[in-house]
């Protein structure tokens, strides 16, 4: 365990720790471009230069290991001068097109220039080496070689994380540039991480392109519901619209985020988002639709069934269970879902596409109910006249329900989700618009957060269920999400 001094403060670090990480432990920030905690060290940008006593010249903090008795200076005049010089160097051929660059506002060059340089360049604009401007580098990425500072984070990400190695540095010296290998495209399923990794505006997202300025965006930490991995994310939104999802790195599950997960926000403002209920495909306000549904439930007395969903939060599943038990008063309900879980591709994507399979178990533990097999058999048996469930969960029993010609009451957010045969489609707030508890494949319980407002008149599913129950003449008293979790073993 070497003991060293950084800016006069001593610290003991495990052998093999770099100076940059040792400084981080003391809360001393050393500027960096090429260093990334989850990638190999490259030492190419020289932004992290620090002074080590008795060393003949400045050393790169990201690639120098701490040694016993080292005395490091991170803010000496020499270091500050070096930072100014490195920035001037990195900006020699930079196009300075911040006004049209999506990275502006969260750009490493802008930030460090303001923090460490504020110096006028001594190089003429006319002498800049021009490189290729924007071009698509895959379905999700835009590449602008002129803005690149050759930190090679992107190259290392493709080589080390996705192991697909699409990128390479071509040429040498001031002619070097990042390029795709012959005939390749950045479509490895994790490509948008490169837009996050890129400290400048060389790689930017095609999906986010020109949609909003980074400094307008508000950040709400929440979780991704793209699969059972349940990555922590941040929803970036502005004036009620979500513009992008980015990973919120954490030790338990994720540093990165997959492209599929990043696009899940799109359903929230999609053209087919339900702002009203549907009865026999006709748009109708929620209240009359619920009254209609309640009447149909009344008719079917005893022949109704309720199916939970691993795509719904624990609260909403619990509300459905209460609906079945206390309002419809039936034993024909099922919260029994199981799926093979585990990371499928060695990075993040889970074998289980549903985000809350583990969470439904707690609902089952409290409310019991049929197993999925029994439930499917029951549906196929022809005794059931009406089924209440969520659109994606319906897919699990579709064949049986269709064959038996069961009347369907479906909870759905988008028109496209709902089966065409549904008798009633009831809209509910997405989990970007309301809180919900989800349990991921590791058993970690995580909450979504309301980043934006739901469309006018749209309520969380538990609230819709509560209304439906009161129209059926049995109050459930679900007036808040925690209320639905009452009695639950959590």
């Amino acid at each position, binding site marked *: 365990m070497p003991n060293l001094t950084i800016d006069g403060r001593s610290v003991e670090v495990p052998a093999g720790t770099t100076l940059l990480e040792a400084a981080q432990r003391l809360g001393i920030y050393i500027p960096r471009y090429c260093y990334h905690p989850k990638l190999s060290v490259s030492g190419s940008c020289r932004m992290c230069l620090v002074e080590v006593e008795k060393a003949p010249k400045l050393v790169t903090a990201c690639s120098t290991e701490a040694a016993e008795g080292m005395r490091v200076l991170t803010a000496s005049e020499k270091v500050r001068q070096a930072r100014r010089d490195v920035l001037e160097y990195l900006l020699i051929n930079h196009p300075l097109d*911040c*006004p*049209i660059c999506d990275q*502006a506002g969260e750009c490493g060059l802008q930030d460090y220039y303001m923090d460490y340089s504020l110096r006028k360049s001594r190089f003429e604009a006319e002498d800049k080496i021009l490189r290729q*401007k*924007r071009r698509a580098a895959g379905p999700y990425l835009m590449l602008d070689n002129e803005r690149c500072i050759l930190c090679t984070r992107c190259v290392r990400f493709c080589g080390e994380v996705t192991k697909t190695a699409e990128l390479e540095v071509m040429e040498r010296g001031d002619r070097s540039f990042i390029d795709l290998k012959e005939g390749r495209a950045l479509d490895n399923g994790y490509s948008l991480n490169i837009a996050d990794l890129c400290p400048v505006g060389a790689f930017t997202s095609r999906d986010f*392109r*020109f*949609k909003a*300025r980074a*400094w*307008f965006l508000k950040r709400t930490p929440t979780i991704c519901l793209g699969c059972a991995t349940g990555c922590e994310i941040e929803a970036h939104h502005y004036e009620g619209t979500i513009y992008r999802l980015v990973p919120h790195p954490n030790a338990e599950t994720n540093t990165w985020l997959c492209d599929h997960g990043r696009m899940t926000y799109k359903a929230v403002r999609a053209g087919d988002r339900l702002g009203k209920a549907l009865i026999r495909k006709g748009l109708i306000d929620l209240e009359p639709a619920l009254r209609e549904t309640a009447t149909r439930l009344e008719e079917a007395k005893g022949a109704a069934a309720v199916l939970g969903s691993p795509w719904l939060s624990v609260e909403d599943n619990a509300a459905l269970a209460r609906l079945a038990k206390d309002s419809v008063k039936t034993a024909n309900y099922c919260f029994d879902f199981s799926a093979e879980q585990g990371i499928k591709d060695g990075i993040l994507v889970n074998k289980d596409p549903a985000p809350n399979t583990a969470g439904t178990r707690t609902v089952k533990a409290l409310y019991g109910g049929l197993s999925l097999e029994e439930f499917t058999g029951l549906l196929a048996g022809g005794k059931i006249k009406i089924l209440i469930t969520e659109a994606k969960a319906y897919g699990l029993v579709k064949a049986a329900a269709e064959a038996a010609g069961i009347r369907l009451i479906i909870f759905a957010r988008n028109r496209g989700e709902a089966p065409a045969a549904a008798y009633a489609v009831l809209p509910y707030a997405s989990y970007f618009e309301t809180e919900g508890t989800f349990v991921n494949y590791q058993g970690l319980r995580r909450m979504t957060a309301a980043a934006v407002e739901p469309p006018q008149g749209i309520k969380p599913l538990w609230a819709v269920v509560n209304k439906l129950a009161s129209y059926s003449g049995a109050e459930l008293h679900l007036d808040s999400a925690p209320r639905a979790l009452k009695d639950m073993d959590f």
Partner: protein
Amino acid sequence: MISVKKVNNRPLNLLERIYVWEIARGLLVTMRHFFVNLVNPKGLPTIQYPEQPIPLPGNARLRTRHRLKMRADGAPKCVACFLCQTACPALCIHIEAAEHPENLVEKYPAVFNIDLARCVMCGMCVEACPEDAIAMDTGEIPGGAVVREELLMTKENLLRNLPGEPSLVGAANRLANEYLRGKE
């Protein structure tokens, strides 16, 4: 502590208390102005705004109706960087950026609205613009609309170059230039 100042007003005299004479005295002043202006309307300070424009001094600090400058090909000089929208304290600028299919400028404003009903004419947008694409040098004072919609300036009616405006590459605020030239 609030300090209280006591004012001793002069008590009204009899004539003032009778009131009629004072009323007549006031009306006399009004009538004098009425007849003087009737005989000599040239001396009237009132103008028929907004039908009748006021000649403005060519001052560099003058802030009048906005315009968006045009490039030689008629395209907006604006690149939809949103800095004016960011700087605007009245939140009256609304921009929607889009990708230009062939132009190397890449980004351009598909929508650019200024709601003059909200604008406080502070000129921050002009200050903020890194492209010198927005200016407030038209010499027209906005206002006096019958319906609010008239006060919403869209890209179409914002885009214009002033008569005789030189090539726009690197052109700074025209009035500022004139002002500076006058100083030489």
